[in-house]
């Protein structure tokens, strides 16, 4: 079994294998990534940094493409699940 690391997604602790991307952690947590401009829930579409649907807030930095960022121990991820943060 690969080494597990733990991070926070919307204040909830989530464990993933080392090397997993933040998009994986959000999906494992059963959450979506962002709310669209009309309020629809959205998750990863392209998986390769093109579509921007997987944007989340990571350690305070907004609009991070979660499919291209690796999880780090103690990372604090916030999705727009309950309108956690306003998109610009």
């Amino acid at each position, binding site marked *: 079994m690969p080494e597990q690391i733990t991070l926070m997604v919307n204040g909830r602790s989530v464990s993933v294998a080392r*090397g*997993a991307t933040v998009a*994986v952690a959000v999906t*494992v947590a059963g959450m979506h990534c962002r709310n669209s401009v009309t309020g629809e829930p959205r998750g990863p579409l*392209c*998986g*390769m940094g*093109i579509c921007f649907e997987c944007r989340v807030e990571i350690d305070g930095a907004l609009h991070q493409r979660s499919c*291209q*960022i690796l999880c780090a121990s103690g990372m604090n991820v916030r999705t727009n699940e309950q309108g956690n943060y306003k998109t610009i």
Partner: protein
Amino acid sequence: MNREITRQFDVLVVGGGPAGISAALSAAEQGAHVGIVDDNHNLGGQIWRGEATNCTSAASHWINGLSGKGVESLCAARVVDQIGPNTLLAETADHICELSYSKLVLATGARERFLPFPGWTLPNVMGAGALQALVKSGLPVHGKRVVIAGTGPLLLAVASCLRKHGAKIAIICEQASRASLARFGFSLLAYPQKIRQALSLRKDLSGIRFVPDCWPVAAIGDGVLEQLTLARGNDVENISCDYLACGFHLVPNTELPSLLGCRLRDGFVEVDDFQRTSAPDVFCAGEPTGIGGLELSLVEGQIAGLAAAGNVGDAHKLFRSRARLQKFKKKLDHAFTLRPELKKLPQPETIVCRCEDVTYGTLSRYRSWRAAKLRTRSGMGPCQGRVCGPATEFLLGWTPDSVRPPIFPARLQSLGTIPNIEPAQYEAMRGNQ
């Protein structure tokens, strides 16, 4: 605080997939000082994602060969603009990189074509390659029920990968007709390597339903995908699933080539025998010149790398094998042509531009990409039309306009490093656009 990195290369390669890696290796073997830049954390591109650490794979031989040849890799770095003659600007999470070159090889790869249908914006509806990428990046799919749909050989590769990771593949829906697939299968006889791949896939996929003439018409769910409606000819079938992996073949990433003034033809970057584009000092290899698969990308990369490093003699020796693989590319295009019924998939209320939530009903009131963009903001969100552009090209026959910098959203601080130059100089720098 962003730190600045400045590098000068004989040959700079943009894109770390097979074409870029083979170009970088070939140029480095000629003694050139080579750099390779890619926006992922590891080299390998989409097809070789995660292969660098798999010592037995052919991919690891290519990828790990780079450091031995002194190639400098810049990963998790995205090229956003050209900031001077033969100089690109790239940014990482905490660096701004000014990358200069004598010769540039663009190996920017391809992305999936997505077609809108009701419910396609639900979470867990994603690209075929996208679900594969997530699984290779650690998403557990053991016991999950997955429908794979769309068109092209990628669907089979994805099915095989997901099954190995324990997913239950409910069905593979291929929009191409049985007759078209049969012709394509027959044409494979001329390519022993492709037959071996096909046979091995067939073994991997035994027992999975593969249905031609079949495509998704609606995804249903409360906040997340729960059920799919599939069309099979005139029949309709409902199926419950956890994920839909759906892509309609590939479209080339031509944003950077366009920005640098490379001439396109039929949507692909035009190159000569030595993979030279119409822009001075700029070469292009792999999918941006035509969707041809792994082997063709490797050969094109080698030719581009050798030619960029000045060894046209050895580059010339590879022309024959490239010509052979290019014939295969034509067969691929033909077999997986999108059927006209797919144009009827979106309903008036179906969202087409996912960044700005512009519906098909709204878009179809306009005559061109530009008119729709100016009035509705479609194609003006962060993806800059990378998703809705290829969709409206198929649905409405629109051609997206010229590319404007920065080609990806960039930090203000990065944009601040762009020198203040006169518009005329800027146009001249962009070549013959």
